């Protein structure tokens, strides 16, 4: 800590904290999307995000100013993901090491456009039928699994997975189309 920073009364500490929280608020969805893409598990992604944030906070004061907060954060998250896979073992892992690197690079790029993607997703959602929107609410707003939704609605589980896959596929392609340069597709 340099001596000319007035940390004695805690004023500067508070400002650093505010700065950090502001940067994190701006970037946390990007970080979360990145982690989820690498681990494809909601609970694991939640845990890794939490761990990542703690590491970020512990390193922030020594590292600041940080040129690209988002990239710095995803680097820390990537290390956390590697730790997770090292503990988990290879048995149920979706990607090989080289593939994980490839996915990581793509995820960093795609999650870097998170605001544009949310914006596009909002418009794509509006084009879904009322029925499909309700199914998504049951899944994401109320936290039901697809299996639960099928059982509660008395529908075949297999059919509900197909329906949900269709909805997600439509949304994925719709977002892609909206972000594509004009004339593409």
């Amino acid at each position: 800590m340099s001596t000319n920073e007035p940390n004695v009364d805690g004023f500067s500490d508070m400002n650093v904290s505010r700065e950090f929280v502001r940067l994190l608020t701006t970037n946390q969805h990007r970080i979360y999307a990145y982690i989820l893409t690498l681990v494809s598990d909601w609970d694991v992604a939640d845990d890794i995000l939490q761990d990542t944030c703690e590491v970020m906070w512990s390193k922030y004061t020594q590292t600041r100013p940080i040129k690209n907060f988002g990239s710095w954060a995803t680097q820390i998250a990537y290390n956390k993901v590697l730790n997770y896979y090292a503990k988990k073992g290879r048995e149920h892992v979706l990607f090989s090491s080289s593939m994980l690197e490839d996915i990581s690079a793509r995820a960093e790029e795609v999650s870097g456009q998170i605001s544009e993607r949310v914006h596009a997703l909002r418009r794509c959602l509006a084009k879904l039928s009322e029925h499909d929107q309700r199914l998504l609410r049951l899944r994401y707003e109320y936290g039901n699994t697809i299996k639960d939704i099928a059982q509660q609605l008395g529908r075949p589980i297999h059919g509900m997975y197909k329906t949900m896959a269709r909805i997600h596929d439509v949304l994925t392609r719709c977002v892609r189309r909206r972000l594509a340069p004009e004339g593409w597709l």
Partner: protein
Amino acid sequence: MTSERKHSFELGRLLTLLMDGNINAVQLSKLRSLLAEDPVNRQYYVEFMVVCANLRRYMAGSVEQATSPQLLASANVETPEGSRRYPIHPDEDVDAEKAKLAEPLLLKLDSCSSEDRPRIIREYAEQQLEQFLAQQREQERQSLERRYRQRSIDFKAVAEKLHRFTHIAKRVAIALVICSVLTFGIVIAIAHVRAQRAVIATVVDSVHAQWTPQLQQMELRRGRIHLTEGFAQVNFVSGSEVILQAPCEFELVSQNNIHLENGTITARVPKQAFGFTVVTPTSHIVDFGTEFGVMVGTANESEVHVFQGQVQMMCPASPSGASRHSAGRTKNLTRGQAAKATTVGEIHLVNVSDHPGLFVRELPDRNRRTGIPGRILDLADIVGGGNGFGTGKIDQGIDPSTGFLIPVPSVGRYGQTTGQYMPLPAFPFIDGVFAPDGSEGQVIISSTGLVFDRCPDTTGQYWLGIHNGAKMKTGDGDTFQGQLDGKVYGTMGYPAINMHANAGITFDLNGIRSAMPAVQLVRFTSLCGVSQITWIPEAAKADFWILVDGVVRAHFYDMTHSSKTARLNIDLHEEDRFLTLITTDDGVSNGWVWSLFAEPTIELKLKIE
């Protein structure tokens, strides 16, 4: 379906299984191969996952709950009041913009008093709007200038001659841009107004309904509505049918969503309208094609009873961030189940069979004179297991010495007092019952131990029990319908509590207030007397006692079938908790004292906030 779509759909199906935690080894292996063999698949995978992450963020706002509170705590930053993250609104701006805009506001708020905060926030919002509009104007100006410059180069040779015309053209262009911006704004405004003014539901029927403000038309649009008296049936565009029971304050949000602030509703939701949601102050109740009732009482606790099908009750995640998932505590309820959501985010199962008549499932007869929600509470209906507004059963009642629910038997019979007070915790509006006899010692008349110290010595016997109705059964099985002043009682139109001496019942006024927090209990009114029947062999006598919190407020003694009917009118106060009705015999004979409380009601009045 094109082969590309088929391909992405298959990949999407495997990813859907993966994200639901339901993928098997074969499917996982297939997914691995698909991702390994083609970078196009990997790109699709990444975009699919980001869609999932954004859906979760967009629909539930769960990531904020998973990180911010803990992080703020570890970073030693105060969490601003009201900083809880709610589901993200479709119109919310991107985070980067928010963070940038909020910075000077945070600094200002740090140094101001709490009274000044709303003003500063308002001024700040206005200032931001002004800045935004100024930026837009500047951009428009620069854009026009650029276009004008390009044009002026193209027509350099004739610039001088056309100077006057280009000047006009510039003005026209500006006017056109302004017009197009205005048109766009108007289109947006019209779309917004249309969404606001779209009919969400229609009032299709009502009984004694009074609305605040008075309804001008039966088509209901988005907004808050207050049913102050009576019942109404509202059919939503989605097909859901909702019966409202006054007093009931709610907000219609969409054709599949109602916010119930207080009061009682019953919803019948057809299969095609699944997902119909009732939002209460403590829970979200999501329907899966069913029939259910919801009550929001005092302290904003909400209770749901499922009559058919299945619903999901969910307490939203607590603002403290205790839950790391979007959904807080959740319970799935099926037919015959009931649950209560508390203000601390807990869900408790409730025994629905204890009070089956809590909800009106059909609109009652519009000619009924009592049991009008928000105006008159029918105590006889409560004795019959109802909610005081017509859900009770005629000739259903309670045995005063056992507390058991009993119908009027086919043959009349005596019961004998046990000298005990029988609390009835399962009845929300009845505290307990008893068969009084002063010779048995202290006569307890409430679950809190209030004593009826003026209780006379009686025979200690009672006949049939305490019933909603006026059906009288002799030991030979003969049936007679009780009358007072020549009027037959014990019907839906003319209700009565039939309590042949010796019997007592205590109503829990606080229980009534809890279920109807928006009303105050004004007064107890009733007629009372011994039923007039011509074949009575002897002039049996009965006393009628009415107590409030153990204090005798009215006493009619030595009443016989030929006595004049007494009229009761007893004011109730906010602090009164128990209303007790008692009939006693003369201690010599218990025969033929068919005692009736006719049209026993509590007048209600809407509280003025």
